């Protein structure tokens, strides 16, 4: 099920509106980072991943493991839209006894792994990718990393292992929004020259505009970039993308909009939708 460029663009706006709705209702969520990665998730689930809500147990499905688990609202919005579960389920987000909590869990149909502690997604993906190679399977394994997440040592252990095992079926996407909780990545812990670092670790690296759905689709669906090398995609993004007063503003990492702010955000997104 491949969508046209225009359909994908429209879908991105709808997913933005939806995830804001869930966060607003639950009065909790990771707003900025969900808005920065939603175009990536949209493209993955609507035109790259071979996954089927009705056949999710299929061992040949592509895998998507979200390492930056705190941006679960983006994942839930995308999965609901793809029919993994009714959207109305998300009315219980973060409520007592709901399985829709503030991080991905396998209790929710469509979620591959329980994440939320940073630095766990990539090693699991390395294991999935090794298994696929051992079994001569051709499915692909994707993960999404936060840029603030990179200093976790486990990522670097996995960077080595992925290249050691020549995992060209593995795709690590970096949501490079340049911010984390305390401030700018390069003030908190510098991870500059990430391209050179990864290349020196034996990965094939491409850079994309993480909000350009056509570019994302082209890069994500046409790997491997080089036979025998794991794939690293630096997606240049903006935290809070799509809601002007949130863009690049630190407090929206896990800020929840007030009634007035929520209305403004929805209005801005409706206007964006009309222009597509």
């Amino acid at each position, binding site marked *: 099920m491949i969508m046209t460029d225009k359909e994908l663009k429209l879908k991105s706006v709808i997913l933005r509106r939806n995830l804001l709705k869930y966060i607003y209702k639950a009065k*909790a969520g990771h707003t900025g980072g969900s808005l920065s990665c939603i175009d990536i998730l949209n493209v993955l689930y609507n035109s790259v991943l071979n996954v089927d809500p009705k056949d999710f147990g299929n061992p040949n499905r592509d895998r998507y493991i979200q390492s930056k*688990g705190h941006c679960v609202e983006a994942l839930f919005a995308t999965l609901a839209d793809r029919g993994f579960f009714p959207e109305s389920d998300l009315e219980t987000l*973060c*409520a*007592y*006894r*709901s*399985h829709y*909590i*503030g*991080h991905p*869990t396998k209790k929710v149909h469509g979620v591959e792994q*329980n*994440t*939320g*502690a*940073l*630095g766990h997604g990539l090693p699991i993906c390395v294991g999935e990718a090794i298994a696929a190679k051992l079994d001569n399977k051709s499915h692909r394994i994707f993960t999404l990393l936060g840029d*603030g*997440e*990179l*200093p*976790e*040592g486990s990522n670097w252990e996995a960077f080595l292992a992925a290249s050691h095992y020549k995992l060209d079926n593995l795709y690590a996407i970096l949501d490079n929004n340049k911010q*984390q*909780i*305390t401030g700018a990545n390069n003030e*908190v*812990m510098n991870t500059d020259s990430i391209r050179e670092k990864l290349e020196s670790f034996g990965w094939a690296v491409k850079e994309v505009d993480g909000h350009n759905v056509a570019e994302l689709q082209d890069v994500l669906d046409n790997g491997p970039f080089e036979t025998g090398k794991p794939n690293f995609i630096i997606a240049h993004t903006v935290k809070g993308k799509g809601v002007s007063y949130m863009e690049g503003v630190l407090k929206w990492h896990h800020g929840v909009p007030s009634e007035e702010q929520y209305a403004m955000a929805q209005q801005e997104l409706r206007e964006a939708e009309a222009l597509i």
Partner: protein
Amino acid sequence: MELDKIEDNRLKLGKANQIVFAETLERLAANDKAIVVVTSDSRGSGKLVPFGEKYPQQIVEVGIAEQNLVGVSAGLASAGKKTFAVSPACFLSARALEQIKNDVAYSNNPVVLVGISAGVSYGALGTTHHSLHDFAALRAINNITIIAPADNFETEQVVLNAVNFGSPLYIRLGKKNMPSLNEENKNFEIGKGRIVKEGNDLTIIATGETVYPAWLAAQKLEDQDGLRAKVVSMHTIKPLDIRLLDELGEEGKPILTVEEHMVHGGLGEACASYLLQNGFNNPFSLIGIPDEYTVTGSQLEIFNHYGISGEGIYAKCKKMLLPTQ
């Protein structure tokens, strides 16, 4: 039970213990340049943003890298810095456990490990963010003192003691506003349980943020049933106050323990083990989070679900005192 509101107007609502921690440390750092705080993108949740602005030379940021946080802290402490490593309790006590075991405890580098938003403080963020294992994990390591203060007074005292403690220390803090319990009792000593309510029909031994609901239960027993429960804030989980346990054992009255921790390996099992091995056979019961997929919800909802509430503890006490009812 509402942790943010006061259930009983005999109590005064204070601040979150982790705010008191940050404020106290900030005060001390003004005159003690050897104090260094180490954070892992955690200064916001640790309420240390003002500290960082005031004393930029006394804060070291390592980014999201908890293992490095503890290793770096061990080095700083070894070089004579009075080092406070501050990170969410869940990551600090699980991710960096080997660094705690080897670089802090075994090598005896006197780091003060401060686990913030501990227990189920993070509520609906789920199991990745809960620390229901930290007492158990750290109790199994030699040469580390474990403390979970109940209220603002105890928190301030712990921080004052921690600065020059001189050996590895773990302080577990929550983020809910806490009432002060027994303002008359100004006795605080690491390793000594603090009585926050007197009584002689049974004893509730609680720790950290569960001392407050234990107090509420004891008050209800008194108001409604004329029964008197002693409430102990067992802020120090290790070393355990065995003198106090000897006294309680001698009294022979029922003992109930309460903790925001899995039932395995925490305060309750520590008390039970001591009592049994020393020949005491008081009726004994333990309240904690059971060994199951933790129910989802806010901290308060999780507490209520598992009976870590004034009502839940009250009901358990009644059962222990009047088993046939």
